[in-house]
């Protein structure tokens, strides 16, 4: 956790009753089984109609290192991370002293009473929880005791904040897939603990939850699950992959859902294949092979995997193979922060490959958009016959988000310019694999298995003419390169267009992408209150739409907000809009954690202030 930031401006002052507007962080030890308890609290609040977000800050470790789960409860619907804690549930003696420093004055600490750690905060309210006694009284089998300990804080916190126990019961049932006996034995601990709190703790804090109108338009899931489901509804047929945090859970979701959703209704056999490769070099090789052969092919990886996939991605670009590659971004190479989030792979992906390459990149900002881009990316890849990279990140991919329900695709699957035997037979005039017959830079393609005598060709990276024949002719090569450029350029206005959140009388612009959207939206409100109205453009695809240039042009100053050290989005914007570069200001940082609204508010108002001084 980073340094204690100022409390949000719209917070009630200390002592005032706080309803549905706080951050609760559960501090526990990795591997202690706290995930079920944490998700139960999160989902119960959601089911009460209260907007919530949950962020799991976890180490690269199976057991033993500290882990934090932050639940932000926000009646106003703000979903970004906040850098302070109103309420802490402390189960980890190892981080007690450090964690309590993040408590706001007047905040609350629920702590397991076998943890006795001295501290110097006399401005927070301490509630002990007799975790072990309660477990002992409930006669929990020894092998389950550690897990069940977590249900104690669910009960105590529920009682003290006012979370409906019936909702918790329902949530537990669905968490345990309606295995009643397991859900009931967990609920028994919750009930026992809530009863204990009712009889033994006097409420001295100011935090309450109250039900709000049901969030029927929303669901709660993570971006990786959504991306996988999107791929399934987009007709994915082949996935080659290699395990890597934080991308593995996307393919694991494919493995979970595809058998239910993608079996042939009559034969009950699969119309897809998923192969775990020996490394990312092979994963992408499989995907390029499958895409070339006419399958909707995909992979999911993170930065290190992207590095290994680079050469094949370049080959796919030059040989015009459609495929979809998800990069669920994490921090830097090797060990250290593989379980932390970042937006540091943007320029890497845009230009991935050697020689002149430029890829279409889609950047979802919400779980719902992960679903949408999950299917849309295949249509785009096959339309332009080129790889499409979908750029997600750990925060979006692995954390649970309250998000709009998934919408069924509003367009039928578009396989692009593909020719089978009868199409080739009826094809007017000459056909060549790389021959642009209608001037849009996109040739028609036939794939292996097509038995028409005109169909076969031999693919390679460089050195092919319009008929796929080997050629080292300079003119042939140059015209191929020009056509590839034309093809990608022509996608600009057909890709997902930017999303705008404009405020009246705004003179300055904010530009961002991906999972920082909730922080930027909240920051807009904070800045507006501070007298700085802003317009916000969210980039959703590379190459940029013309609308991006217009936005930059129409704002005196545009702050480009992103989670990386070097301001990569800013770099790309300057590259394409060099005549407007003095209207583009980079605001970038990377510390491994999701962006906060306060950081944006502080840096933008500071820079605006400096200008006025």
């Amino acid at each position, binding site marked *: 956790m980073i340094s204690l930031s100022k409390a949000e401006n719209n917070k009630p002052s200390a002592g005032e009753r706080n309803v549905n507007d706080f951050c609760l962080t559960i501090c526990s030890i990795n591997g202690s089984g706290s995930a079920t308890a944490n998700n139960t609290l999160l989902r119960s609040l959601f089911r009460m109609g209260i907007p919530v977000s949950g962020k799991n800050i976890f180490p690269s470790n199976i057991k033993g290192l500290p882990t934090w789960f932050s639940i932000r409860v926000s009646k106003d619907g703000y979903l970004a991370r906040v850098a302070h804690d109103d309420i802490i549930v402390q189960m980890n003696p190892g981080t007690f002293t450090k964690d309590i420093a993040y408590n706001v004055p007047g905040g609350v600490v629920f702590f397991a009473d076998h943890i006795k750690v001295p501290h110097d905060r006399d401005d927070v309210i301490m509630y002990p929880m007799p975790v072990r006694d309660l477990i002992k009284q409930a006669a929990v089998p020894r092998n389950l005791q550690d897990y069940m300990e977590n249900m104690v804080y669910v009960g105590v916190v529920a009682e003290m904040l006012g979370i409906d126990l019936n909702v918790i019961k329902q949530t537990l049932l669905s968490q345990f897939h309606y295995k009643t006996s397991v859900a009931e034995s967990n609920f028994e601990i919750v009930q026992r603990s809530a009863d204990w709190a009712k009889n033994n703790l006097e409420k001295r804090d100011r935090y309450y939850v109250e039900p709000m109108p049901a969030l029927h338009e929303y669901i709660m899931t993570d971006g990786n699950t959504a991306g996988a489901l999107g791929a*399934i509804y987009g007709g994915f047929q082949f996935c080659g992959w290699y395990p890597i945090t934080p991308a593995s859970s996307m393919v694991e979701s494919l493995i979970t859902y595809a058998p239910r959703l993608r079996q042939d209704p009559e034969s009950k056999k699969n119309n897809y294949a998923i192969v775990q490769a020996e490394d990312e070099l092979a994963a992408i*090789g499989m995907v*390029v092979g499958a*895409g070339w*052969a006419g399958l909707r092919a995909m992979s999911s990886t993170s930065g290190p995997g992207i590095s290994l996939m680079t050469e094949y991605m370049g080959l796919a670009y030059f040989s015009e193979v459609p495929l979809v590659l998800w990069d669920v971004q994490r921090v830097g190479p090797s060990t250290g922060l593989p379980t932390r989030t970042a937006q540091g792979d943007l320029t890497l992906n845009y230009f991935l490959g050697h020689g002149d390459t430029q890829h279409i990149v889609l950047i979802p900002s919400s779980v719902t958009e992960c679903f949408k881009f999950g299917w849309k990316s295949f249509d785009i890849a096959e339309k332009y016959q080129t790889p499409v990279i979908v750029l997600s990140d750990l925060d979006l991919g692995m954390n649970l988000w309250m998000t709009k329900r998934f919408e069924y695709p509003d367009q039928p699957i578009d396989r692009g310019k593909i020719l089978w035997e009868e199409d080739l037979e009826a094809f007017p005039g000459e056909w060549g694999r790389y021959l642009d017959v209608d001037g849009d830079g996109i040739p028609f393609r036939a794939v*292996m298995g097509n038995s028409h005598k005109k169909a076969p060709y031999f693919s390679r990276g460089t050195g092919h003419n319009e008929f796929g024949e080997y050629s080292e002719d300079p003119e042939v090569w140059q015209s191929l390169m020009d056509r590839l450029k034309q093809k990608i350029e022509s996608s600009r206005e057909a890709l997902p267009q930017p999303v705008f959140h404009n405020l009246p009388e705004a003179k300055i612009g904010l530009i961002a992408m991906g999972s920082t959207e909730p922080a930027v939206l909240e920051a807009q409100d904070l800045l507006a209150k501070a007298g700085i109205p802003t317009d916000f453009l969210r980039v959703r695809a590379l190459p940029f739409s013309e609308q991006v240039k217009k936005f930059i042009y129409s704002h005196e100053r545009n702050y480009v907000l992103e989670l990386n050290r070097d301001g990569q989005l800013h770099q790309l914007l300057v590259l394409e809009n060099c005549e407007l570069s003095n209207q583009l200001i980079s605001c970038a940082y990377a510390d491994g954690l999701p962006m906060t609204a306060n950081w944006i508010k502080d840096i933008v108002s500071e820079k605006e202030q400096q200008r006025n001084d």
Partner: protein
Amino acid sequence: MTDIIEETNAIGLARADYQGLRSTLCPGCGHNTISAQIVRACFEMSISPERIVKFSGIGCSSKSPTYFLKRSFGFNGLHGRMPSMALGAAFADTTMKVIGVSGDGDTASIGLGQFKHLIRRNLPMVYIVENNGVYGLTKGQFSATAEQGLELKRQGVNPFLPIDIAKEALIGNASFVARSFAGDPAQVRELIKAALSHRGTAVLDIISPCVSFNNREDTLHSYQWGRQHQAPLHDIAYVPRRKTIILKEFQEGEIKEVALHDGSVVVLKKLDKEYDPQDKWQALKILEDAEKNNWLVTGLLYINPEQPSLYDFMDLVERPLNRINAEDLRPSPETLDKINQGMY
């Protein structure tokens, strides 16, 4: 086996229908012999060229797929990474015959990992290694299959022990391992036919001399050394599909027959020694003996026609995946409603 060359084969195609472009490899290169035998094998087996797909990595060997079967689709992939590309593509239509051509640099160095994992998955494909112990396209560096002590013009003396591709394949649980010699085209051809009928990865490690950089008479990958030291395990003949599947020995071990998955049979006629190609330990032993005694052992080293292939674990629909209608790939709106409900 017959030597009569017919005008057309059983599906009415001529030999020319199986040819490729003119080779740009050096005249006399062993790879050209192998290409010619691929052409002849496919012609004689009456496989429609459109039902074959070709893959290769990078190197002289990997250029050769354009020199045969011009009526087949193909893809020249990346150095050492042809197996993964072939695997992904093969899923598009599992009824097609897959031929991969690699070299000793492509397979035994940069591609060793993909080679071993291809074998482990037992993807049905013919995997030919055109093995000459040297890097040709980059002008004569040692490859990992070069023998210890080999002296090359600009490279000096190779201090390292070689990687034996056939041994690697056997240890990696390959279901079909053969070694051959480009100087023995008839054997190459019959092995290619058997490999095309095998339901699994068929590894053909073919010593294919490089006339430009590694063909000195006393070196292990040269024509002359091969001719002088070749020790075939058996005479091999491929017999197309028969009505009954046989696997038995008769004539006191004179002839051994191995039935392949598609009903064809490999007939192995005993030469001077007893050899059972279904005994993996004997295969490894003969390779050890060959190394010690300076033999170029050739023939079908090992075969297990019953080893499950990758497809056996995938439970795929009958129709080739790349011919499934777009509308059949998208689940119904009702299923998405259910998913949404489950996530509330």
